[in-house]
């Protein structure tokens, strides 16, 4: 079983703060981490490998620094890491990113299963996974919360839906995106980390994976960021302190006055 896990290195957005005076981002000291949703994808890939044998390849597109996140994936149990890195990838939107990753997977050959996190915390689009599946021409099941059965040829998965879940049968090769509920990622081991330090992370350029120039980077991206700006700030609210009964009364009064309740 050949499994590819797509991961993204992202800034830890939860560490980001807004400067209240200038209303701009304070990014100082914010670390780069593996997109949290991708850690569930890595774990699921390793679990399947432990059950069915095979190989897990962690794949990422990004700057050379993203190598670190691939090493972390190796420390957790991935067999190898591949980084798609090229100045010409800069400016990629989800379309170009999905295209590029699909080209990378094509070069890996005979891939049975692609696993992605449900979305990345910096962009929150959830678009890349299904996009990759489209470029590969394979089925895609998003928001998988459980793999009930899997063998070399097919699997049965549970897709989380509003108000319940779908049980879906799908032949392999296929792509799934996974939600947090699917597993609890393991901690890396010291031996894994030592392996990871020595592991060679392959780096492939646009030429290595035979990309069409018009499909990558800014040229291959249909969307264009016109501007970015700070979100409107919430007004400072009204805080009640003191006797609970009194505070509760004042709150209800205020809500009624504003016709909120």
């Amino acid at each position: 079983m050949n499994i590819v896990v797509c991961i993204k290195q992202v800034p830890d957005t939860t560490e980001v703060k807004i400067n209240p005076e200038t209303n701009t981002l304070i990014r100082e000291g914010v670390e780069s981490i593996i997109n949290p949703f991708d850690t569930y994808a890595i774990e699921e890939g390793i679990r399947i490998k432990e059950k069915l044998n095979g190989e897990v390849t962690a794949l990422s597109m990004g700057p050379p620094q993203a190598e670190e996140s691939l090493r972390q994936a190796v420390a957790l149990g991935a067999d190898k890491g591949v980084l798609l890195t090229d100045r010409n990838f800069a400016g990629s939107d989800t379309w170009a990113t999905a295209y590029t990753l699909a080209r990378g997977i094509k070069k890996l050959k005979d891939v049975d299963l692609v696993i992605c996190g449900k979305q990345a915390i910096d962009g929150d689009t959830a678009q890349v996974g299904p996009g990759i599946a489209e470029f590969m021409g394979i089925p895609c099941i998003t928001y998988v919360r459980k793999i009930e059965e899997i063998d070399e040829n097919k699997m049965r998965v549970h897709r989380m839906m509003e108000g319940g879940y779908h049980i879906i049968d799908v032949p392999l090769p296929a792509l799934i995106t996974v939600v947090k509920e699917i597993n609890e990622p393991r901690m890396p081991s010291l031996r894994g980390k030592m392996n990871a330090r020595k592991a060679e992370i392959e780096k492939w350029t646009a030429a290595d994976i035979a990309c069409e120039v018009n499909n990558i980077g800014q040229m291959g991206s249909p969307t264009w960021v016109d501007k970015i700006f700070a979100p409107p700030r919430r007004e400072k609210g009204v805080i009640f302190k003191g006797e609970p009964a009194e505070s509760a009364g004042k709150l209800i009064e205020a809500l009624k006055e504003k016709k909120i309740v």
Partner: protein
Amino acid sequence: MNEWQLTEDQKMMRDLARQIAQEKVKPVRAELDEKGEFPAEIMKVLAESDLFAVFVPEQYGGLGGGCFELCLITEELSKVCPAVAVSYAASALGAYPILLFGSEEQKKKYLPQIASGEKLAAFGLTEPNAGSDAGALQTTAEKDGDSYILNGNKIFITNGGVAEIYSILAMTDKSKGARGASVFIVEKGTEGFDFGKKEDKLGIRASVTRELVFENCRVPAENVIRKEGMGFIVAMKTFDSSRPGIGAQAVGTAQGALDEAVDYARQRIQFGQPISSFQAVRHMIADMATKIEAARSLVYKAASAVDSGMKDVSKLSAMAKLFASDVAMEVTTDAVQIFGGYGYMKEYPAEKFMRDAKITQIYEGTNQIQRDVIGLEVIKESTKKKIK
């Protein structure tokens, strides 16, 4: 800042222990403490992360580190939960007699299981009437053909019941006093070996402290460590190697309490400003931090001495344990003080550190015993000096 010149591997171990402490231990520490529940799940995580391998040589399935690595990890775990740290470190304590004095067969049989974390180890010395006075042991081991028959009780044994491999001190010849003691490897499940009362403790409540009961327990002669009568030497050398670990536990406990106190002091507003801006608080923080740094230096020095194979480490080991544990008690008490009324409440982590700190002044030799050891060594050194 890297004053101890940690190697890449050591940094990796420390960082991994820190990550596990933050992600796996912190969310459950209060609950484990309240229920007095052994952190079996966390031990599994530590095992899968190879952290039990750091103090075992490579040929026995370890990663080839020593006391220093053990201290680094114990300190990190203690910063978040000393009870988890001691459950971890007690396995090393149980392993030391085998590591230091075991035969090749014993090492090959037991160390890989300890290194993988598949089995925990424990050390059994203390008895109802013999703690600091180890010569008063009442547990006996009588030779009977190819085996020994053990009888007696051990109390206050960390990891009692959860460990699989025990290093047990018993008298093989009472007439010889301290020279008549021997150490046996006893596996859980051996007939005649059972567990008694589980203690309800002031602190380190998530760690198991339990009575061991031996009733005509037959142990094969091959399980004697080194040879009959070596018991005290094995125990004392074990303590020489393990006491820096208690020191590390104390340093971690103190650091954990200080970190919480500083965070709190920066957030707590009184008279319109954070209390960290008051000199009274700031100076407390300064003293706490300084003491911790001094204790850490002593602990690291003692651990390095142990690993260097230095001959007489008793004094340094005892100093590390003594000083760091006294610092832990002082610092955690001050941390509660900085938290004020909240510090006294279980909802905040300060009081737990204070309760957890106390034991470090008591176990593996009370601090009074440590002072005896140190005093004796210093005087011995003086008598050896040539008078000019």
